[in-house]
């Protein structure tokens, strides 16, 4: 299969807008689960308003949240695909820019020093484009994640040492959830990276935070910690929007990577309740949205 660059551009535009308007099914189901378990009156009312907002966004074809985020594109390329990688990345950038101008969307992206906004949602190194490969034949998957800043500001890295053990890793997560309180727009998905280098650890936390609800860590030890922490954070009483209740998080997600004998890194990256993402698969048969 030859990857059609024009198709990639159009899809990059469409996926950005689609992600901002339609919450994935697993997150909607996550709300149903929290609603069934929430006993706090304020917590129930806040969750109810969030669910109402999802319906209003669909009915009025509007954005779920005003924050158009930092645009992230995850591209997974299968086997037997011919593509021009440079052209593909340029096409994604053009699609992102066109979504911003043509919808129009708020450009939430500025130069980090001058703070100048180019009004394109693009800038130095943005959109983030992560390219990976898998075994699917003649398949390219593009996932778009508009990562909101309220939760992205809830990002932390600690280079713990082996003597601190796993207990310090877990303590770090609990303490950061307490520290963030309502600022990260709970109920959240708490993404936790364990191991790797400092940059990989942070990236693992992002993968964890943006993974679909219902998926579990592929590493058995990571999955155990995931289950423990998922129960624990909802015992803190922070609740939706930090106004009290059980529903602090949909789930804690953990991703792990091997690390150095002298290292024990842990990272936290949080996803807000507007856990937006959209993806599509390109095959010789056409484009299929998730």
């Amino acid at each position: 299969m030859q990857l059609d660059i024009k198709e990639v551009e159009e899809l990059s535009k469409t996926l950005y807008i689609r992600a901002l308007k339609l919450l994935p099914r697993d997150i909607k189901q996550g709300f149903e689960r929290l609603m069934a378990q929430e006993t706090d009156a304020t917590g129930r009312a806040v969750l109810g308003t969030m669910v109402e907002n999802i319906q209003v966004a669909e009915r009025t074809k509007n954005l779920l949240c005003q924050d158009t985020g930092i645009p992230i594109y995850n591209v997974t390329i299968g086997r037997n695909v011919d593509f021009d990688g440079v052209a593909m990345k340029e096409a994604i950038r053009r699609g992102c820019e066109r979504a911003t101008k043509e919808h129009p969307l708020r450009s939430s992206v500025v130069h980090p020093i001058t703070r100048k906004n180019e009004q394109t949602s693009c800038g130095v190194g943005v959109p983030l484009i992560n390219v990976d490969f898998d075994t699917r034949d003649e398949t390219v998957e593009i996932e778009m994640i508009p990562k909101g800043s309220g939760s992205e500001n809830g990002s932390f890295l600690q280079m713990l040492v082996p003597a601190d053990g796993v207990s310090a890793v877990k303590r770090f997560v609990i303490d950061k959830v307490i520290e963030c309180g309502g600022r990260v727009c709970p109920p959240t998905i708490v993404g936790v990276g364990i191991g790797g280098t400092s940059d990989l650890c942070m990236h693992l936390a992002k993968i964890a935070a943006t993974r679909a609800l219902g998926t579990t860590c592929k590493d058995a030890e990571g999955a155990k910690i995931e289950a423990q922490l998922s129960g624990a954070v909802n015992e803190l009483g922070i609740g939706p929007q930090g106004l009290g209740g059980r529903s602090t998080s949909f789930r804690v997600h953990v991703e792990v990577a091997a690390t150095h004998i002298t290292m024990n890194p842990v990272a936290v990256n949080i996803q807000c309740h507007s856990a937006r993402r959209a993806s599509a698969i390109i095959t010789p048969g056409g484009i299929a949205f998730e």
Partner: protein
Amino acid sequence: MTHHVLEMPITEQQARSLRLGDTVTIEKTLFGIRDATLIAMFDQGRTTRLNLKGHAVVHTAPNVKKVDPRPTNSSGYEPVCIGTTTSMRMERFTRPLMERDGVRLIIGKGGMGQGTLDALGDIGGAYLAVIGGAAALQTTWIEAIEDVDFDDLNPESLWKFRIKGFGPLLVTMDSHGGSTYAQINAEAAARRAAVLASIGSA
């Protein structure tokens, strides 16, 4: 718990009548303000021609559409999606915003700190929580963008919105020293030890 309908602007006495746990719907006028707006006003010495005295500000940077100015829409902008951002980043601006510009109500999400709580008590104001992330719903409470100042800072301009039934909002910080966020945070801190013990991390 009382429900208040406040047509903006309001007096100090009205602001002080709001108590933790009360709900509020505001009417008529609301200003939108954000990091860059406040940095321009208080760090870079820019002054606004808009009068904020007795008014409410919401921490926002909206999605807007540029349109030709016409009598019914003098700002040249139409709302697309207007929500609320995390307030805590703007903590150091609450006192000067109240003292210098006379703002009475701050609308935001996630709560603010002790500096804001002190300013609300000293000057007379309240912090009202809107549900963060519920921007599609919030947009239905906004009728029009009446005016805009600091247009060069778009989307972080100073926006003047005409509103209808903006709420219900929840009073989560009042002028009597009450803060829901401080209460919840203290409760979480108190539960921390037991939670850590339950996962073998004491």
